[in-house]
């Protein structure tokens, strides 16, 4: 690992910390401009004496910057208070539901990559043919499909008409199938499209022509020369997709009653269970920032020169 690589990674890490801090600040600003946090965070029927007690306990009589600091430090330690609905600590509820969202997200990512990369690479290799057009047609249908509509169509077909798969709950692995497919198909469309562009871009470069000229077979050129080089832009693309997968999970989990973070978020927003909303939002932010940092570190290791230029250029 060179000095430049380390520097790029360090810069990225610093930037992630700043971004996280900004997100926490954003939540604090929203919380404070929405009104008195005691009114916001405690149930409406709380007696005034208790409200006053909390106001002092939470230090709301102190200056704003002190309050901000204590908000940040509590957020850092994962202390978001207790949920109105269940009276359980927010952190416990979040930690209990998070694995289910991660399971759903990862299985969708896997399925989408399988479909998307195959379609995309196929399209690139058979560029301009009927196969390419069909592959890209399927891709555009996929990513234009609203997730909630796709979910409903799949429930109609596989749960209500054919009665093959369960449409709600999470009691078995069978329950994972429909939500995974729903979340994966639009993603597969985006991956297919991006993979095609990335592969085509690499295949147009000089070293691929050289490999062909040296007599390497088509498959060998593709697998040994083109694809490894197309991986770097694809990796960056995956970094951007994490946020979109989690957004999609919110809708998918609600449709299929999959008890993960997304469904928790929607129910806590509609019940205005504010401590829970804060906890879930900041957890999701943490997941996205960390996965982006992970992608950036991988990127810096794979492609030090480009990465440093990109980092210092500030393009994000």
């Amino acid at each position, binding site marked *: 690992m060179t000095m430049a690589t380390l520097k790029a990674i360090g810069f990225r890490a610093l930037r992630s910390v700043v971004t996280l801090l900004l997100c926490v600040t954003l939540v604090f600003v929203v919380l404070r401009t929405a009104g008195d946090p005691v009114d916001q965070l405690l149930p409406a029927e709380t007696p005034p004496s208790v409200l006053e007690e909390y106001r002092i306990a939470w230090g709301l009589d102190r200056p704003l910057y002190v309050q901000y600091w204590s908000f940040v430090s509590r957020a850092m330690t994962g202390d978001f208070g207790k949920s109105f609905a269940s009276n359980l600590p927010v952190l416990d509820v979040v930690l209990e539901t998070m694995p289910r969202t991660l399971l759903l997200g990862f299985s969708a990512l896997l399925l989408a990559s399988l479909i998307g990369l195959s379609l995309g690479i196929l399209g690139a290799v058979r560029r301009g043919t009927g196969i390419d057009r069909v592959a890209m047609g399927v891709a555009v249908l996929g990513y*234009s499909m*609203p997730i909630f509509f796709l979910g409903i169509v799949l429930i109609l077909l596989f749960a209500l008409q054919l009665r093959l798969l369960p449409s709600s709950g999470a009691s078995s692995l069978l329950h994972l199938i429909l939500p995974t497919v729903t979340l994966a198909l639009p993603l597969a469309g985006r991956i297919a499209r991006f993979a095609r562009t990335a592969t085509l871009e690499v295949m147009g470069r000089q070293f691929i022509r050289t490999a062909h000229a040296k007599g390497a077979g088509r498959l060998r050129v593709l697998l040994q020369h083109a694809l490894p080089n197309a991986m770097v832009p694809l990796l960056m693309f995956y970094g951007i997709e994490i946020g979109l997968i989690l957004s999609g999970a919110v809708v998918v989990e609600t449709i299929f009653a999959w008890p993960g973070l997304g469904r928790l978020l929607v129910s806590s927003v509609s019940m205005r269970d504010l401590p829970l909303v804060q906890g879930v939002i900041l957890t999701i932010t943490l997941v996205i920032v960390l996965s982006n940092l992970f992608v950036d570190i991988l990127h810096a290791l794979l492609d030090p020169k480009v990465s440093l230029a990109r980092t210092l250029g500030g*393009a994000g």
Partner: protein
Amino acid sequence: MSSVERSEARAPLFADLPPVIMLCLFWLATIVVVAVFADLFAPAHYTTQDLLARFRPPVFLGGDWDHVLGTDHLGRDILSRIIYALRTSILIAVLGTLIGAIGGTLAGLAAGRLRGPVDLSVMMLTDVQTALPSLFIALTFLAFFGNNIFLFIILVSLEGWERYARLARGQVISEQSADYIKAVEALGAGPGRVVFRHLLPNIAASLVVQATLNFPGTILLETSLSFLGLGIQPPGTSLGLMLGEGRGYLLNAWWIAVLPGIVIFLTTLAMSLFGDWLRDRLDPTVERD
């Protein structure tokens, strides 16, 4: 960059449209006309209930011509509801896209022109936007402030603002030191004139392409939030809200949810295809996702 010939870009923009793009434009024009003149097209008002005519199937499933696309759980005419819902969804998506495009572009221009702390703040905000997708920002605000239509439109407009900002900022920074800009400045043009008369027109095409590609995302954000019951509230209606309401009746009246779903799907599909075509025609450098 690939070595694709760009000479075709000189041809008139709408010369020899591919049939698919023509179909897309036809669909988009149709829904805009229907949305604008909703009162003329809708057979009934979207809130008119007829409890004796609940769950009527559409004509193609053996229903009658009184309710071409059938009725919902309150006996409301689905065709009329789709037409009015289309009006709401299109209006919000158009306003959201415009506000996002203008706000994002101004932020980017300011960042590129002023640099320093302004630039740093705008860039940090785009980082925040990346770390916290618009759906989550929207949900946070809706949780704390409750729902109202103005807040809702602003939240929808957040979708993709950072892409306009990056585009505008990049353009200002790369062109600022170009000779023609120096010449204009030497002739006494102020910063405002340089930015709006000389730099902005250069990226106008890219901005239009970006807005077209962004539009499906904006529609999806609005319909998703309304679908979740956190966007447009009854008695108002939106295509997403119709799907959300129809979700409970899939077993005996699937058309309540599926028909508005098809309308959303066709609209995002048409706009995506048109956006791709426009980008290939005008500006192959715009980022997509």
